[in-house]
C-alpha cells in the first residue's frame, strides 16, 4: 500500500479513537439535555471533579486539608491509607450521587420553568462553584491518576501491521487506553440508549425536557428525574474523567474537554445518545485528517476551530444535528 494511504488510514483510526473520547464527555451533556432541556456547561467540571475525588479517595487525601490547615494551623494532609481503585470508583460514584442531589435541591428546584438560557447560565455558575470546591477540597496540583488501565501504543498491532508498508513504516499506532475507552463507551451508549428508549423513566425524561410544568401536572416528579439523570451524568463524567485523567493527569484543564465535546453534540444532535458517538467519530476523524493534510498548509493548530466549523456546516443543512429531534416550528 502506498505510504500516504497508510498514514491516512492510521490518522483515521486514531481520529476515531479520539472521537470516542470526546463522545464520552458529550454523552453527559446529552443525558441532561434530554432530561431537562438544560445545556449543562458544568459537565466538563464534573469530569474534573469526579477525577479529583477519585484520586483523592484513592490516595487517602484529607478533603479540604489546605483550608483546615489554614484555619486551625494544623498540618494534616493524608489519612495515611490508600484505597483500591474499584472501591475508590464506587465511592466516587456515590459522591456524584450526593452531588446530583445537591444540584437538584439547591439549583434546579428553584429554576423550574425558566427559560433555557437561564438554566444554562446556572450551570456555568455551577461550573465555577465546583471548580472552586474541587480546588479547595483536593488542591490545585497535578495528580496522577492510575486505576490500572493500560496505556501506550499497542505493540501487538504495530508488529502485525508493519508488513503493510515499506521501510519507514512501523505499523499502525493505537493507544491501548483508547481501545479501553472505546469498549467502555460502547457499553455506556448501548445501555443508556436502552434506558431512554424502552423505560418509563426514559419517556418521562423527554417529557420533562419539553415542558416542565406539564410534566409536573401529570405527576412526574422533576426532583426524582433530575437526581436520577444528574447521577447518571455524574457517573458518565467519572468515566470521562478517568479516561482523560489517565491520559493527561488530573488538573484544571480537564474541565476544558467540555469544549471538545460541544461540536460533537452539535453534530450528533443535543438529544441523541447514539448521535454523541457518531458525532464524536466524525469530529475525531475530520479534525485529525484536516490537521494532518490541510493543517500544514495553513499553519497548523486547526483542531480547536475545525471541529466547530465542521459542525456549523453540518448544521446549516440539518439544524437539529444528525440525530437530534426535529425542532418543531409551528404557529
Amino acid at each position, binding site marked *: 500500500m502506498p505510504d500516504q494511504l497508510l*498514514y491516512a488510514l*492510521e*490518522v483515521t483510526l*486514531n*481520529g476515531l*479513537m*479520539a472521537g470516542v*473520547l470526546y463522545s464520552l464527555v458529550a454523552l453527559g451533556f446529552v443525558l441532561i439535555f434530554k432530561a431537562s432541556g438544560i445545556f449543562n456547561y458544568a459537565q466538563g467540571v464534573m469530569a474534573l471533579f469526579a477525577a479529583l475525588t477519585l484520586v483523592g479517595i484513592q490516595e487517602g487525601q484529607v478533603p479540604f486539608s*489546605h483550608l483546615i*490547615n489554614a484555619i486551625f*494551623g494544623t*498540618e494534616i*494532609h493524608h489519612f495515611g491509607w490508600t484505597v483500591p481503585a474499584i472501591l475508590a470508583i464506587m465511592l466516587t460514584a456515590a459522591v456524584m450521587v450526593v452531588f446530583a442531589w445537591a444540584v437538584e435541591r439547591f439549583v434546579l428546584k428553584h429554576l423550574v420553568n425558566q427559560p433555557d438560557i437561564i438554566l444554562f447560565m446556572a450551570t456555568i455558575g455551577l461550573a465555577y462553584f465546583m471548580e472552586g470546591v474541587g*480546588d479547595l477540597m483536593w488542591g*490545585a*496540583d*497535578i*495528580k*496522577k*491518576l*492510575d486505576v490500572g488501565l493500560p*496505556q*501506550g*501504543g499497542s505493540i501487538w498491532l504495530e508488529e502485525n501491521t508493519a508488513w503493510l508498508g515499506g521501510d*519507514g513504516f*512501523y505499523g499502525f*499506532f493505537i*493507544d491501548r487506553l483508547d481501545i479501553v475507552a472505546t469498549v467502555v463507551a460502547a457499553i455506556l451508549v448501548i445501555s443508556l440508549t436502552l434506558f431512554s428508549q424502552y423505560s418509563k423513566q426514559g419517556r418521562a425524561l423527554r417529557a420533562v425536557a419539553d415542558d416542565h410544568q406539564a410534566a409536573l401536572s401529570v405527576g412526574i416528579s422533576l426532583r426524582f428525574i433530575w437526581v436520577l439523570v444528574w447521577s447518571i451524568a455524574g457517573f458518565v463524567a467519572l468515566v470521562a474523567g478517568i479516561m*482523560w485523567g489517565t*491520559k*493527561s*493527569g488530573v*488538573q*484544571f*484543564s*480537564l474541565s*476544558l*474537554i467540555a469544549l*471538545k465535546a460541544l461540536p460533537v453534540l452539535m453534530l450528533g444532535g443535543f438529544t441523541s445518545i447514539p448521535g454523541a458517538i457518531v458525532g464524536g467519530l466524525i469530529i475525531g476523524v475530520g*479534525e*485529525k485528517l484536516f*490537521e*494532518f493534510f490541510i*493543517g500544514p498548509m495553513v*499553519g*497548523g*493548530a*486547526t*483542531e*480547536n476551530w475545525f471541529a466547530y466549523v465542521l459542525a456549523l456546516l453540518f448544521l446549516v443543512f440539518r439544524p437539529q444535528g444528525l440525530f437530534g429531534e426535529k425542532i418543531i416550528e409551528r404557529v
Partner: protein
Amino acid sequence: ELVFPSLSYRTGPFAAGGVPFADGYADYFTLLNERDGGIGGELTRVPECETAYNTEKGVECYEATKGDGALIYQPLSTGITYQLIPKVSADGIPMHTMGYGRTSAANGKVFEWIFNYPGNYWDSASIMVKHALDMEGGSLEGKSIALLYHNSAYGKEPIRTLEELAEKHGYNLTLIPVDSPGQEQKSQWLQIRREKPDYVFFWGWGVMNQVAIQEAANIRYPMDHFIGVWWSGAEPDVLPAGDGADGYKSTNFTGTGTDYPIFDDLQTYVVDKGLAAGDGQSLGQVQYNRGMYAAMLAAEAVRKAQEIHGVSAINAAQMRDGMEALEVTAARMEELGMPNFGPEVNVTCENHGGPGMGLIQQWDASAQKWVAITDYIQSDREVINELIMEDSAAYAAENGIEERCN
C-alpha cells in the same frame, strides 16, 4: 521595609507550576528576615496577589500593589509581561522576567526598566541546539528537528532563533503547533511518529506538557532526544506519565534538589517555624528552586543598590540601578549557601539579559527526580544578539525610544 510583590498564580490551568514558584519566592525572603533580619537591616515583605495567569487580573494586581513601595515585579506570565512593560517603564519600577517575557528586553539600551537575566527563550533554544550538537558529535548537518510548540506568543518565541540556527548548522526544522490547552495531541504525535525527526524540541505549558510527554512515551519516541524548554521541565510535567517519562530532558537555569546548604537554613528558619508559604513539601522542586533563585537575584540586587546609594530603604529607581550593576559570582553563591545553583550573572547597562546560560537536566523516573547532566552551557550569543538588536530596534522605533547607555 522592602516590598517585593509576588504576582502568583495558584489557581487556574497553570497552578501546578505557579504554586511552588510562589512558595520558593516567598520562602527565600522569609528566610532573609528570620535569619538575617532582612537585607541590610531592612525587613522584607512579599505581598502576594493572585493573577490566575490572567492578564486583566495581572493588571489589577499591578495597580493594587504598585503604590505600596514595590521594588520589583516578576509577573510570571508572558501575557502580563507584555502588558506591564510599558506600564512599569512609565511608572519607573523595574521588572524582572527570568527566562520568559519579551526576549529583546535583554537590550538594556532600549528597555531601561526590564531585565531578563540569566537567560531568555532564545538562549534556551540555542542551548538545546548546542546539546543536540554535542549528542551528535558536533554536527547537525542533515538532521531534522521538530519544534512542538504552544500556539501562542510564548510558543512562537524560539522559531526565529531555531530558523537562524538551522541555517548555521544545517538541520531541517519542522514546526508543529498545538493549540491551547493542548489536551489532544494525537495528530501532532502521529506526524512525529511518521516523520521521525531526530530531535523534538518542546515549548509547552500547562496540560500540554503532560500530554506531550505521555504521547511521546506512547509512540516510544526516544526520550533523550525529546528536549523541552525550562518551562516544560518540572516535576508535575513528567510525573503523570510515570515511567514513560524516563529520560526526558529539558533546559534549566538553576540546580534542582535540596543538596545545597541553604535548604538546611530554610528548613530551620522557615519550614520548621511554620512560616513556609506552602506545605513545605515542594522544597527542591524545579519551580520552587526557580522561585528561590529569583528571590535571591532580587535580594542581591537590593544589596547592590544599598551599596551604590548608601541607603538601606531603597526605592524602585535605586533598585533598578542595583539590578543594572548586579554581579553574582560563583563565590557569592557559595557564600549564600547555593554553590553553583545558577550561572554567574553579570548585568550591565547594555546587557539586561545576563550571560544567557542554562544547563540540561534529565528526568530519572525511578528516583523521581531531575538530574543535571551538563554544566551551564553558553548560548550562541552571536546569533541571538543580532536577533535581539533587530527586535528591540523595531520596538524602539515603534515607541519612539532613545537608546541609552551611550
